[in-house]
């Protein structure tokens, strides 16, 4: 380079050299930062944004070919880890990060996408309680959409068989994992509804969508937006039973009822035959005892009425009459007896008095009764032949008289 003039570069040449330098040295970079100034270019579908920390920032681009596999949409303020390379845009002489992957810090990217979809559908009203259909208490025909193999199907059959064998169970085998899972489930929902409507299936009371536990990636088909909409528009009540108790999916929120697990779904949708039989036993017992107590009560109340004062009044009246009749007859008896005995006494007294004044008594004292023959004229007046002489003037000379003493009679002649 001695004595040679310094090399003069064109802008393009400089930018090309810088580009080579930079792109050579930053072929793969991982950057932690915050997304800001995020823009989605509508026509092209590319993402443009800035990654920054407290004191510095760098432009970033994510081409549509890359961002279409992203499970969530980046937002301003999101803390992320970005993987990509640094490129130079020679036309403007600036450099930027060409982003291949964005991983949210903290929550996983699937989690983030899940939250975003949930939020969006929630705001749309897809999960409203008011549109949830009630689950019939005694389902006759149930369609189970799940994997054709595995523990879920086996457990579901075992539990429904034990609890409610009156049910008809239709199994609709689908893929519950992988790319095609969501579409086969959507298809199964549509087919079930159509077949039930056209009579190819009986009237379906409940559809259960079930899958056993797994990672968030395994359960991902159940976070499909189209599946959520298919569930939402289905006229048949749907019970969602995906994963374990702690797993929540969009399918759960869109369904009419979420069961914590497939086995729990089998229990929730079926009444327990044992309990039903117990209830029938109780019914038989109670209804019999009701009828019995009813008749006993009625019998008792009839007895009560029978015993009541008013019902017994006629009898009382009769008894009262009995009593007063008795009373009167007693009183009559008493009066009569008294009367009789008083009369008896009176008669006795009269007797005594009579005795004292009787001629007999006087005769015994020495009196005598003088009787004389009655004249024929006088006989017309009295029927006694003898007439008691009460005055001396009544007697004539030589008239025969009879002297009666207390012991006998003697004849005498008046001088």
């Amino acid at each position, binding site marked *: 380079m001695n004595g040679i003039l310094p090399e003069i570069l064109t802008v393009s040449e400089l930018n090309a050299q810088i580009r080579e330098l930079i792109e050579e040295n930053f072929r793969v970079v991982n950057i932690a930062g915050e997304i800001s100034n995020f823009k989605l270019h509508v026509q092209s579908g590319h993402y443009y944004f800035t990654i920054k920390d407290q004191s510095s920032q760098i432009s970033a681009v994510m081409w549509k070919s890359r961002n279409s596999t992203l499970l969530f949409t980046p937002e301003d303020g999101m803390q992320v880890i970005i993987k990509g390379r640094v490129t130079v845009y020679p036309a403007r002489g600036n450099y930027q990060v060409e982003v291949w992957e964005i991983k949210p810090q903290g929550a996983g990217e699937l989690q983030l996408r899940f939250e975003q979809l949930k939020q969006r559908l929630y705001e749309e009203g897809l999960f409203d309680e008011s549109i949830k259909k009630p689950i019939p208490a005694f389902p006759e025909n149930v369609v189970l959409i799940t994997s054709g193999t595995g523990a879920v199907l086996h457990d579901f059959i075992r539990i429904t068989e034990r609890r409610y064998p009156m049910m008809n169970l239709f199994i609709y085998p689908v893929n519950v994992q992988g790319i095609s899972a969501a579409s086969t489930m959507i298809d199964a929902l549509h087919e079930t509804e159509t077949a039930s409507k056209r009579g190819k299936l009986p009237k379906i009371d409940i559809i259960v969508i079930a899958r056993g536990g797994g990672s968030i990636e395994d359960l991902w088909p159940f976070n499909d937006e189209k599946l959520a909409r298919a569930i939402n528009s289905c006229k048949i009540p749907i019970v969602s039973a995906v994963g374990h108790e702690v797993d929540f999916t969009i399918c759960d929120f869109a369904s009419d009822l979420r069961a914590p697990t497939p086995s729990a779904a089998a229990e929730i949708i079926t009444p327990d035959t044992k309990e039903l039989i117990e209830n029938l036993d109780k019914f038989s017992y*109670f209804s019999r005892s009701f009828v019995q107590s009813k008749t006993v009560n009625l019998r008792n109340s009839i007895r009560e009425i029978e015993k009541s004062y008013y019902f017994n009044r006629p009898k009382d009246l009769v008894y009262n009459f009995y009593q007063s009749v008795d009373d009167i007859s007693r009183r009559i008896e008493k009066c009569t007896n008294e009367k009789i005995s008083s009369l008896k006494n009176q008669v006795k007294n009269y007797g005594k008095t009579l005795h004292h004044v009787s001629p007999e008594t006087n005769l015994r004292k020495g009196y005598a009764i003088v009787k004389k023959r009655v004249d024929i004229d006088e006989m017309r007046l009295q029927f006694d032949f003898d007439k008691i002489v009460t005055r001396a003037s009544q007697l004539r000379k030589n008239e025969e008289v009879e002297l009666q003493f207390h012991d006998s009679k003697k004849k005498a002649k008046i001088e």
Partner: protein
Amino acid sequence: MASGSKKAKQESTFEDSYSRLEGILEKLESDDCSLEETIKLYEEGLALTRYCYDKLNNAELRIKEISRNSKGDIELKEHK
């Protein structure tokens, strides 16, 4: 499948019977029920319980598998 849906319709009385039983019990429990009514309800309940017992005791879970034939139509076959 037409016969299947008809059959289902005929058998749909279990729920009706069962809820009718609950209604009967409620009526029996209420005081404003005459003796004639009570006896009538009791007899009806007795017949319904017999029917429900019979249904429950003789039930056997029927399992069918849904599949699609080559034309894309739904087909039912016995499970296992």
